[in-house]
């Protein structure tokens, strides 16, 4: 459990943040610039002292103004990847990396130096000074430094913002592995819903110094009332799923979820592996009859459950597909022409391509979702 309930005044800015959530997996802090994300994370690390309140992680109280508890940062064992890299200018890259390593408790879950170096592509940089690094290189070193300190909890404040997509794609699985294999809980600040969906189990939505909502990513990203905070572009359903089969000849993997089986480009995961699949509303098309001779592999039969009122050119619809909610975004023109309204039966078409690596997150290792469709034959999706 991560329990945060703090009040802090900074100039004109009032932070009054309260949330509690599970710490297995990744907790994402999401919110607009200046809402107080960094301040919350600083308080967790012990770098900002709240005016009052309480912070506890897994039952250990780190701060409690009423009891006068304030564990110093170095004894919190909380790793921190800062928004600005904050590398030590007087150490080489190697020295920076070894700084936390030397002080880390040995054994138990410790990460290998050479492993981190290889993973973050730092081999050629070990002898450099921080000022001789590019922006992205700096952030990679900062990431490695925090990891090597073998933290109990890892705080990451927009760690990937200055990295290019291929590098992000390389590092994200590593963070996932940290989370899953090493069971390091991560508090992750990001503006990129992609990353959050992929990594996070829990989402803490912040707005103007307050926590607007906190809960499972699946729940919050599906809620229409939170759209102003989560962002319209990013709207969609995040669904728990499990690997139910592979179609090796075509390099596809079948994912069972409450609404059926989804085919996606092959995942190197065993059957039964737990995932979160994000299907963005913008990637779902609707048809009144099953499409024929069409490249769209995933077609699900469902019912229109709710039609959003957006007033613009685009309309969001919630569908019930089996037991799963699915969101579709179509034009108002199509809505009118197809005559869609709640209760109407439709076919939802989801391109296999649209469900790409960025939309798939491995769920925390202790998540257990057994899809209803797990017993279905591999081909039991509603046609293709």
């Amino acid at each position: 459990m991560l329990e945060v309930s703090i009040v802090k005044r900074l100039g004109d800015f009032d932070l009054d943040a309260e949330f509690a959530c599970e710490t297995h997996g990744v907790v994402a802090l999401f919110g607009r610039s200046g809402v107080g994300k960094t301040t919350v994370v600083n308080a967790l690390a012990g770098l900002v002292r709240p005016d009052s309140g309480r912070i506890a992680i897994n039952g250990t109280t780190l701060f409690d103004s009423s009891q006068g508890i304030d564990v110093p940062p170095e004894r919190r064992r909380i790793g921190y990847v800062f928004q600005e890299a904050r590398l030590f200018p007087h150490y080489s890259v190697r020295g920076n990396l070894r700084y936390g390593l030397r002080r880390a408790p040995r054994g138990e879950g410790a990460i290998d130096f050479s492993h981190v170096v290889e993973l973050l592509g730092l081999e050629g940089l070990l002898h450099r000074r921080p000022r001789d690094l590019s922006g992205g290189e700096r952030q990679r070193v900062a990431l490695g430094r925090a990891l090597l300190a073998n933290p109990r909890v890892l705080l990451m404040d927009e760690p990937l913002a200055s990295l290019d997509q291929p590098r992000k794609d390389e590092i994200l699985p590593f963070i996932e592995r940290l989370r899953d294999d090493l069971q390091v809980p991560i508090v992750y600040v990001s503006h990129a819903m992609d990353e959050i969906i992929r990594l996070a189990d829990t989402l803490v939505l912040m707005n103007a110094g307050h926590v607007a909502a906190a809960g499972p990513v699946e729940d919050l990203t599906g809620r229409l009332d939170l759209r102003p905070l989560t962002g319209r572009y990013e709207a969609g359903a995040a669904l728990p799923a499990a690997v139910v089969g592979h179609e090796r000849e075509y390099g596809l993997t079948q994912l069972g979820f409450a609404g059926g089986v989804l085919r996606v480009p092959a995942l190197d995961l065993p059957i039964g592996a737990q995932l979160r699949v994000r299907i963005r509303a913008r990637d779902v098309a609707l048809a009144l009859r099953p499409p024929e001779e069409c490249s769209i592999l995933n077609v699900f039969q469902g019912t229109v459950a709710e039609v959003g009122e957006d007033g613009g050119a685009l309309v969001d619809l919630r569908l019930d597909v089996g037991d799963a909610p699915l969101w579709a975004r179509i034009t108002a023109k199509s809505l009118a022409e197809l005559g869609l309204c709640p209760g109407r039966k439709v076919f939802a078409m989801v391109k296999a391509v649209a469900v790409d690596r960025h939309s798939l997150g491995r769920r925390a290792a202790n998540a257990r979702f057994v899809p209803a469709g797990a017993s279905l034959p591999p081909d039991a999706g509603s046609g293709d």
Partner: protein
Amino acid sequence: MFALSDLEAEALTLSLQVSIWAVGIGLPAALFVAWLLARREFPGKTLLNGLVHLPLVLPPVVVGYALLLLFGRNGPIGAWLDSAFGLTVAFTWQGAALAAAVMAFPLMVRAIRLSIEAVDTRLESAARTLGAGRAEVFFTVTLPLTAPGILVGAILGFARSLGEFGATITFVSNIPGETRTLPLALYSLVQTPEGEAGALRLAAISVILALAALAGSELLARQLKARVGG
């Protein structure tokens, strides 16, 4: 360039010894006091700050006299040092080093403090999240980043020690081979007819010594800068 006379060699060696010791004992103390003044709040901070600056404000002779009163054989600290450790500072080269250290102290403290205050506290925070305690942060982050200031403090202190006259002659007198440093020897020469040439030679020795120390420190500073970046 020129061969040193015995007297010159003696004064030179003594001056070096005294200055090195003055910096050697003064610098760590200055570092601690500078850190206190830069990073901590405590009652009496203003007082400490004032005390540190006293040797700068008072004429050296007065400082020397105060040292004589405190550290002399009959002075409170001097008597205690003598009975507790059998240590006599008055009228010995150790006393000369003490006088030089005291006179150089404010310069060392100020330079170091200035550097400590310029260290980015965010780096210190980062170090703490990596598991380093306050003391460790000081030694692994603050101190290395303060190195330019420490170096400046050391060179200022060394130069000031080389030139120290008033406090020294007042506190430890002008005893050949024991406390007659370069400036004191210079003073003695100025008092004698035909002494000017000798005085000039001694001044030249002082200057060469100081220039060598300066050049060394600049070199070191350049290396530091290359390491830390600017």
